[in-house]
């Protein structure tokens, strides 16, 4: 199973998208009042909403699909079209240009986009703990993440902010760094091979194939951006805050449903994504539970975001020299109302 931004054609697909702003002039689009002249979102009168996902339909998006299937979106008067993604889908650009109303990205992508002039705002943070990790063979007996960089081979995607963080924090020596191709074929054959991973994906698959994966979470190493963050364009938040609030509330309800009982939604996910079988879906949904529902969300509600976390992320990105100077955190996110 190929996973996580194997951006083989990323550059090309993105380049074809850049024709859009040129074609439409990329002027500040004034959105026609959604929901018709009635203003209040009445069922059936609402304009369709697109939610663009940044990966294939998988348990990491379970709550969104649950909200659709269980009718949470419909009850809020929203006609939501959940658009599954794949490798290299340029979600940030799609949302910034209005191609999609909402999208899911990692928090650091949002900060980078804002730093480079994009007006996109975070409204819901699914993963409170980032599911990114470094996966090695447990037969190597490593006890700390930095040991993974001392020997063997490590497949990493150089451009990712968390990779830059790891490089800055730990002294990389000895390990041969190669390109990450999204699969686990190499991992299965070479005991000294390690790679970046998504905790709901590669380790589960490796274990199924009889391997002995051991995962070190990047979050534990000190870099913990919110992940599968729902974003939208700033002008939508300004012009139609009720619609955004309704969408976020319905999304939280969907996630509550999915966390309580992933079974029905998993069944549906299995039909959308043939690469994941039923046991994998169950294992992935279970693995992500502690990353989505934490002490903080029990207090503040699912998807909650704090200023402190965003501020930390911005400071880390500045110190990694990925952005020139800090952006204003307060305009970058709108935390969902506590329920």
């Amino acid at each position, binding site marked *: 199973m190929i996973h996580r*931004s*194997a*951006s*083989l*054609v*990323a*550059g090309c697909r*993105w*380049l074809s998208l*850049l024709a859009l*702003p*040129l074609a439409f*002039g*990329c*002027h500040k689009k004034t959105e026609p009042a959604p929901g018709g002249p009635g203003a209040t979102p009445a069922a059936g009168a609402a304009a369709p909403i697109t939610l663009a996902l940044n990966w294939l339909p998988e348990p990491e998006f379970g709550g969104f699909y649950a909200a659709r299937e269980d009718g949470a979106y419909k009850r809020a008067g929203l006609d939501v079209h959940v658009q599954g993604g794949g490798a290299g889908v340029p979600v*940030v*650009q799609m949302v*910034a*240009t209005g191609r999609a109303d909402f999208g899911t990205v990692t928090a650091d*992508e949002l900060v*980078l*986009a804002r730093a*480079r*002039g*994009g*007006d996109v705002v975070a409204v819901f943070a699914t993963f409170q703990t980032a599911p990114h990790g470094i996966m090695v063979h447990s037969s190597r007996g490593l006890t700390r993440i930095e040991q993974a960089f001392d020997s063997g*081979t490590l497949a*990493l*995607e*150089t*451009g*990712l*902010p968390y990779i830059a963080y790891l490089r800055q924090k730990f002294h*990389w020596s000895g390990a*041969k*760094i*190669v*390109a*990450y*191709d*999204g*699969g686990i*074929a*190499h991992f299965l*054959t070479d005991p000294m091979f390690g790679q970046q991973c998504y905790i709901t994906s590669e380790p589960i698959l490796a274990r199924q194939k009889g391997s002995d994966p051991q995962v070190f979470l990047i979050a534990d190493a000190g870099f913990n951006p919110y992940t599968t963050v729902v974003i939208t364009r700033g002008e939508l938040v300004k012009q139609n805050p009720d619609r955004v609030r309704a969408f976020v509330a319905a999304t939280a309800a969907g996630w509550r449903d999915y966390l309580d009982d992933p079974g029905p939604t998993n069944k549906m996910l299995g039909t959308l994504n043939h690469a994941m079988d039923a046991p994998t879906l169950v294992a992935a949904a279970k693995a992500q539970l502690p990353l989505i529902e934490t002490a903080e969300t029990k207090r503040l509600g699912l998807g909650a975001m704090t200023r402190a976390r965003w501020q930390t992320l911005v400071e880390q990105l500045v110190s990694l020299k*990925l952005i020139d100077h800090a952006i204003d955190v307060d305009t970058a996110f709108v935390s969902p109302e506590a329920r």
Partner: protein
Amino acid sequence: MGSTKRAFDTFIPPLLTLLLVGVVWEAAVRVLAVPAFLVPRPTAVLAAGWNERVLLASAVTTTAAGALSGFALSLIFGTVAGLFLSLSRTLERALYPYALFLQTVPIVAVAPLLVLWFGPGLRAVSVSAFIVSVFPIIANTLAGLRGVDARLTDLFRLYGANTADSLLKLGLPSAVPSMATGWRVASGLAVIGALVGEFVAGFSEGSAGLGITVLAAYRQLRTDLLFATVILASLLGLSLFAAVSLFSNRLLRRLRARV
């Protein structure tokens, strides 16, 4: 002087077009206030290229190594294969479809397999460049050898020339124009093959090639660097193409001079 005017006529129009496009692009981006991460200004692209010149210089060297070694493999294997296929119609019919397969195989899907078989780094990247660029050489070598003037072939046979002599003294020299076309086409493809190979087979640290640099720039939403890298990749392909063209023209001139 004639050659100065010729140079002037050849280079000035495209350069002026480039300048005009650059000015219009820069103005459009500024006036329409397009965010930097969607469409970069030409000046930003140039600045990014200059600021990262050390990284880019090293990246060009790495990709060039992959492209050139893949191209060399294509030249050797492609020419020999073309020669081989020209020896008999039956052989051609039996093996040509498989040569064609090399043309149509989607390299993006095959590249991960190459890493598995050859290990990451130069070897897999060269093989990727080879797969993408070998078919034009086979096809054009074969076409060139098949297109030899029949009367000359008869003449050679009349004088009892053996296969080797026919090939070396008649076949190959006549086939050079066609082969040169194959070389030119293959040169550009070799660079593309190397780039695509690098997406999965490249080394990420130290000697990262242009392919890895493109992906990293995209990941960090540094579209100005992305554009600069893509432009450099095109220039690399163009340079190889120009070098091959120059060599082909010289070779053809010398061959014609001998007649």
